[in-house]
């Protein structure tokens, strides 16, 4: 009887020792369902980072546990986060493509004091949900307020007509853009909202064309809708070269440009990352990502790639300590050169500070690309900035 006790004790010790040696990272993404493509992009970037930088940091081996939320499902996301903490004993929560899921998991990060890295979800107030949370992607107002100011100040646009998808992210983007646009002196003379589920854009674009606006501001979620909207613009004879078409980067990402064809030329978007960005680090990153995933990285991927960088850097700084408090302290104020350009983590809001690029779709060497025509460095999240004042 004694012998079995000794063996059990030894085993337990070994197991806990083993636990010291590894850092477990729980990745929560919508691997299946409507947003599966974004999740795949982000996940490939995580794999790329680990492949490039090895899977041991500060002497500890990294271990990943992947969980699928299946789409917008905060109740499921919260349960998965709880299971990761309680059952899989993870040290770090990562991933989070969608805002509702990030919000729900934020509660778990706060309660369990686990370091959490949001790699895409873009609603501003997410980082307020837990003091141990940092974000390495973007916030919707960050891009859209910069675009609004730029549209009046630099592009000299006087009046604009806005068309956005009728749900949370669409409202946030429109509100951010129009606020900055009006402050800068522009006027919004009309707006319309698309239904979120597979709309047909013809009627809305026709309505916009009838107002023959000087410029259009558009926001649609990624996936099939940018291409469908582009085609509707072409069919209605709205030429992005004459009527300025402004929007967030999804409107002119690679799959949208490929599906739209030459119709896309002239579309102006605000972006925090584009594979066409001219920097040595970015070219290497794009080449390596193509080898691994067979296509160019988009902003989902880069959010994931930089998220991993933040985790690696924080672990190095704390020399492998994995408790939430020390990791978030290490993360605050972290600065580094990302494929998108210089980025840093705002010590107060733990959100990302980055450069916002204004880019136009042009035909370069027979291929449609986003060409940078302007940039606004070191943009903080305006919503939280106002909250602090």
């Amino acid at each position, binding site marked *: 009887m004694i012998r079995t006790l000794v063996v059990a004790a030894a085993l337990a010790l070994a197991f806990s020792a083993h636990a010291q040696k590894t850092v477990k990272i729980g990745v929560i993404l919508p691997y299946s*369902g409507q947003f599966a493509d974004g999740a*795949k992009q982000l996940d490939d970037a995580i794999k790329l980072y680990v492949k490039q930088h090895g899977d041991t940091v500060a002497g500890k081996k990294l271990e990943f546990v992947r969980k699928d939320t299946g789409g917008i499902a905060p109740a499921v996301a919260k349960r998965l986060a709880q299971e990761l903490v309680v059952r899989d004993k993870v040290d770090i929560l990562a991933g989070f493509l969608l805002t509702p899921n990030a919000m729900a998991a934020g509660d778990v990060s706060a309660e369990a004091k686990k370091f959490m890295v949001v790699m895409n979800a873009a609603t501003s107030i997410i980082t307020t949900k837990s003091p141990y949370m940092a974000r390495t992607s973007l916030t919707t107002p960050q891009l859209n307020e910069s675009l609004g100011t730029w549209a009046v100040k630099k592009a000299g646009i006087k009046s604009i007509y806005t068309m956005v998808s009728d749900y949370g992210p669409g409202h946030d983007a429109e509100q951010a853009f129009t606020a900055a646009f009006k402050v800068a002196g522009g006027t919004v003379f009309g707006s319309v909202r698309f239904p979120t589920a*597979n709309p*047909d854009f013809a*009627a809305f674009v026709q309505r916009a064309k009838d107002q023959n606006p000087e410029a259009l501001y558009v926001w649609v979620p990624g*996936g099939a809708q940018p291409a469908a909207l582009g085609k509707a613009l072409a069919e209605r004879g709205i030429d992005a070269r004459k009527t300025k078409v402004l929007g967030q980067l999804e409107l002119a990402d690679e799959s949208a440009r490929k599906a739209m064809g030459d119709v896309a030329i002239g579309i102006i978007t605000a972006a925090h990352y584009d594979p066409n960005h001219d920097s040595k680090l970015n070219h290497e990153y794009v080449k390596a990502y193509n080898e691994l995933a067979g296509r160019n990285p988009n902003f989902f991927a880069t959010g994931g790639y930089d998220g991993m960088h933040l985790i690696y850097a924080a672990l190095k700084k704390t020399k492998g300590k994995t408790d939430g408090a020390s990791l978030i302290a290490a993360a605050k104020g972290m600065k580094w050169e990302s494929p998108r350009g210089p980025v840093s983590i705002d010590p107060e809001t733990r959100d990302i500070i980055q450069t916002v690029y204004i880019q136009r779709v042009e035909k370069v060497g027979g291929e449609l690309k986003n060409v940078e025509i302007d940039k606004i460095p070191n943009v903080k999240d305006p919503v939280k900035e106002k909250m602090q004042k």
Partner: protein
Amino acid sequence: MLGSLAGVLFDGLAYGMLLFLLSVGLSVTLGMMNFVNLAHCSFAMVGGYVSVSLMNRFGWPFLATLPMAFLAAASVSVLLERGLYRRLYRASDLDQCLLTIGIVFVSIAAYAWLYGTEQQAVEGFPPYLRGSLQFMGINLAAYRLFLVLCGFLVTAILVASLEYTRFGAKVRAAVDNQRMARGLGIDVDRTFMLTFALGGGLAGLGGSLAIEMVGLDPGFALAYLVYVLIVVSVGGLGSIGGSFAAAIVLGISDMAGKYYVPWLGAFLIYLVMVGLLMWRPQGLFGKR
């Protein structure tokens, strides 16, 4: 203002044609054969992916891929009919639901594995189908015109073949009363198989025609299921003409609603459906 009214009506008609082409196959399988085939859009996906691969990988012209999409989807539906559906002809419609939803799940995962989850971009799409033409001051998109043409063509062929040919008579007889049809010497089993192939093939054709308008990714099998069910139920079971009329009514009212009353946009198609069903529960031209 007239210009845009005619424009909205044309767009509504084109959108209705798209809904019709996607759902006509279901009005054959669900409508005539009374089989709750929720996997209808999976067959549409089969057609869509076949024509995308033919165009992107083998450089086929778009129009040539349409018959191939029809045949591919038809053969897949025959396979499934022989293997699975046939055993559930007399099962409760709940069991038919379970089987077909199972097939939808399998098809989504299979296509995500085969083609990846990203939107299928179509290279080499014929330019003459992309631009738009001016006709009496209205801006007609070429592809929408093409869809309207396809809609009328498919309806004409279907109504002619089902109403005026021996095969059509046999199908309607077999569906109405299996026992009696067998009594008259009709090989009911083969007729059902061919009818199912027709339904599946039409779905495949609808799928490939829809790519240009609404794109294609593995989630297609669930995304459009609701709209297809709406068209078939409002149109009335067992009537091709019913689905045709319902698709046009829904297409135009949806488009007009989004143009004239945008804040009501998303509600409209469901309100129209509820209204029509409460007025005619068996559907516009439904028999039972």
